[in-house]
């Protein structure tokens, strides 16, 4: 299994859907971090068959909300002094800023450059563009 004990202080992003860890690596902008990052791909998991894992060494402050949207199965393990200090499950974030894009041609975001694409979580549990109310369909983007 994994060498979680090789991290003294940091984060383990576990149960990532196999094959998607590089996308998460880029979305979290881990390439810009000044600390050790290990990407472990396609390991066997009891729960999900195959999974990816990302381990990040060091005390960092990441906005992990985005992960709840991308892959709700992901779990976060916080490591302190070589031990598991906390396990977190993810929830769907209330808003997503520049994570997904509005595709409505009538929306102001399609007419002007430089507008943040902001979506908010509706009561029904889907994401709608705050400008035009268009629902985001993951399959169409």
């Amino acid at each position, binding site marked *: 299994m994994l060498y979680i004990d090789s991290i003294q202080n940091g984060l383990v992003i576990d149960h990532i859907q196999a094959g998607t860890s590089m996308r998460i690596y880029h979305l979290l902008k881990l390439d810009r971090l000044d600390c050790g990052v290990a990407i472990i791909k396609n390991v066997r998991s009891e729960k999900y068959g195959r999974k990816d894992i990302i381990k990040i060494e060091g005390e960092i402050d990441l906005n992990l909300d985005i992960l709840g949207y991308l892959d709700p199965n992901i779990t976060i393990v916080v490591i302190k002094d070589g031990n598991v200090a906390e396990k977190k499950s993810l929830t769907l974030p209330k808003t997503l800023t520049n994570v997904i894009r509005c595709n*409505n041609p*009538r*929306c*102001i*975001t*399609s*007419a*002007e450059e*430089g*507008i943040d694409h902001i979506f908010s979580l*509706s*009561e*029904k549990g889907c994401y*709608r*563009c*705050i*400008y*035009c*109310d*268009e*629902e985001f369909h993951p399959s169409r983007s």
Partner: protein
Amino acid sequence: MLRHLIDPLDLSKEEVISLLDLADDIKQHPENYREKARYKKLATLFYEPSTRTRLSFEAAMLNLGGSVLGFSDSSQSSATKGESIADTIRVISAYADICAMRHPKEGAPLRASHYSRIPVINAGDGGHQHPTQTLTDLMTIREREGRLSDLTIGVCGDLKFGRTVHSLIKSIIRFPNIRLVLISPEELRVPDYITEDELKAKNIPFTEVRSLDDAMAKLDILYMTRVQRERFFNEEDYVRLKNSYILTTDKLRPAKETLAVLHPLPRVNEITLAVDNDPRAAYFEQAENGVYVRMALIIFLLGL
């Protein structure tokens, strides 16, 4: 605190009622409000022409003793030179005390409100929202029926792109015992975000029907809208559908005596001229009320 009116739900139900009370009082005693907005300026930023809405805003401000400035077509304005909404509103904030924005793109007034130092009123954004029309509709419904609850409301025509319809539905269902009858061709049904998030989620009774005749007898309010040519990709569909939802005196026969027929105007042919003489026609009253609710809204947003 700076307030805007972008979505009809930006106003609480209580605020809507007090605005309508104020609008009723203005209608009864316009002389009491002649100087209310003296020395204040309203900017009308109309990125697409809508003469009726713009004149209604301008009349409202002039009735309050204020003045107006603005543009009414983006081809004559800085918008075509590529200035962003954010920059335009920052500049306008220095010229005027309040503004009304009409824009072909959905969400443009919301975008403006994020950068504005003056109240922004959404005067219609694409096929999305039109909150001052909604206030006008609510005022007319309350005036005719004496209440905003316990009503069966039929909305007819283009329910897909008809922004006045979306705004009205979202607002009226905050009042108790509202039943909706959605009358449209299959191609122009109310979007799912209204039926799913608003109606089903809030347990509002509604039916969707294809014919005006099926609905007529039970309605307290009939809200007619125009089926617009530009909403169709081909001429054939437009021609086939445009005449199916025309209100005639004949179709009105089974309707209640107390029915009120509303229409945001301008109409093309969706209500025949003969219906104008029927006491149930309320759409010209509605157009007049538009000025009173806009006066009330200006007073409210400027804190006068």
